[in-house]
């Protein structure tokens, strides 16, 4: 039944009316508006309402939730206002862990992508496949796998103790370090893939020319390779940064209850916190951070691509 509708659209080579294009796209758009875009608007509305006593909201306008995102009131005297240090600490942890994750992924991802891009054509697909398999493996399974490596009775600690390098296990679980390792582990493929795409397009003759003109390896890397793969770098960084800032599963499993990130703080408001408007305001804050990163990316890459065209 669904396919019958498409018959009208088939000879797409000829210019035609556009009405049926909307008709064909409609089922997808309706689902997306119902279960993706529409609910986002509702979150925005909820962030300006008053919390109900047992979760939910009371339909009374209030900016209190947005106020509480950044500030807190004294329990005894609501007029006494101070910065909400607990929230600010969580914002800072989220941003800083996301940035650190991005840097680690870049340091490991750049040589890895280069390695793949310089393999002979017939083995390249194999190395790419090796990168893609973890990428499509369930995030939870990968987090679980990392947990098995770094926990107190895990692979690292038992090996160290067996070798006699340490008497007691080194506590890695439930620390920021654990979250960092976990996020770098699960998001690394997101850095390698766009970097590889950029390197694959790289004109090797430019490197040759560099060496012909007596450039050292370092100069070739810094003055030829890096500028040319920069768009891939930026794309990879954004792709790692965005899920890192929105991370929920990794900090929950590896960070335990105390080392929360923004995602966990949001969830808390819908669970024990029972403050839906605050949760909604925090969710909007996260969205602003992500959209900000995206806009930076679009502006930045747009500019570098223009610059590249001028040179080309």
């Amino acid at each position, binding site marked *: 039944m669904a396919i019958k509708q498409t018959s009208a659209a088939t000879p797409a080579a000829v210019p035609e009316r556009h009405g049926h294009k909307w008709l064909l*796209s409609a089922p997808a758009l309706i689902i*997306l508006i119902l279960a993706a*875009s529409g609910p986002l608007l509702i*979150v925005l509305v909820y962030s300006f309402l008053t919390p109900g006593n047992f979760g939910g909201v009371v339909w009374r306008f209030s900016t209190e939730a947005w106020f509480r995102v950044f500030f807190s009131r004294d329990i005894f005297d609501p007029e006494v206002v101070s910065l909400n240090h607990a929230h600010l600490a969580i914002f800072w942890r989220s941003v800083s862990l996301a940035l650190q994750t991005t840097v680690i992924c870049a340091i*490991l991802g750049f040589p890895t992508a280069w*390695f793949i891009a310089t393999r002979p054509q017939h083995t390249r697909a194999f190395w790419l496949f090796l990168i893609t398999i973890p990428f499509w493996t369930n995030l939870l399974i990968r987090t679980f796998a990392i947990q098995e490596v770094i926990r107190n009775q895990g692979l690292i600690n038992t090996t160290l103790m067996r070798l006699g390098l340490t008497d007691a296990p080194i506590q890695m679980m439930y620390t920021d370090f654990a979250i960092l390792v976990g996020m770098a582990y699960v998001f690394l493929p997101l850095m390698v893939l766009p970097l590889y795409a950029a390197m694959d397009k790289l004109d090797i003759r430019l490197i040759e020319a560099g060496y012909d003109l007596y450039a050292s390896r370092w100069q070739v890397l810094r003055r030829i390779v890096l500028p040319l793969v920069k768009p891939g770098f930026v794309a990879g960084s954004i792709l790692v940064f965005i899920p890192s800032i*929105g991370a929920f*599963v990794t900090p929950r499993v590896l960070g335990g209850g105390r080392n929360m990130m923004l*995602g966990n703080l949001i969830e808390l408001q819908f669970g024990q916190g029972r403050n839906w408007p605050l949760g909604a305001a925090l*969710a909007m804050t996260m969205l602003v951070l992500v959209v900000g990163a995206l806009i930076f990316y679009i502006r930045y890459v747009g500019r570098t691509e223009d610059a590249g065209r001028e040179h080309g």
Partner: protein
Amino acid sequence: MRGASMAERRVRSFSITRLPGFGVIALATFVLLYVPIVTLVVFSFNAQASMSTWGGFSLTWYEAAFNNRQVREVSIRSLWLAVVASGLATMVATLAALATTRTSRFRGQTMIYALINQPLMVPEVVTGVALLIFFAAIRVQTGYSGMGYLVIAHTAFCIPFAYLPIKARLETMDLTLERAAADLYASPWQAFRHITLPLVMPGVMAGFMLGFVISLDTVVITEFVKAAGQDTLPTYMLGQLRRQVTPEMNAIATLFLALSVVAVTIFFVLSRKRA
């Protein structure tokens, strides 16, 4: 083509693409990527209840997983949800891809792209919270609390993943065949049925596979949307991870992993087929 030149030249002038230390870091990265996964798989076959001391090969934990009624239940629910959601997503994404590719630009095209790609850009926690609020309101109004919420949430999330390979396939397809069909007096429907559809089919199947893997992988959205008794395999695992875990979890994870690898391999084979 340009990609090939890199490898060819590498053979001729041997060290030109070599950068000191890069190979070592790259190989170390591959090792780091695979050590945790391989460890996980190996210890699922451990005869002991330990996840760090090897006590011999055994299938005890697979047996335990198969005999665990709850595991069976959540696995079946996950698979069912993935097939239904990815199937729906693939259907609507195919229609949308037919409408938005191989066409001159039209008004609102950018908006369609933005809507389709939205689930890729918004953090899952935010989408999860949004759906929690929205569905809670609907639940109060209608009293309905079935699997429909999870189905529509997963479908929306799978649409961009199903759409991409279908769009890619359509864009690389040979238009002359359809024109030839039209020249030979095929009706638009016949041309679609006998030319377009068979040609685009590998893309559609690839889209389905990708959507299937994504739905299986989705944990955050499910965690927020699910009602009591609607746990999927990932949310069940998330709940279990907070307790002391036994290698039974490794066995479940290994089976899950195998399923993803098979689906991704099929996706790769399908999307590499020449149009």
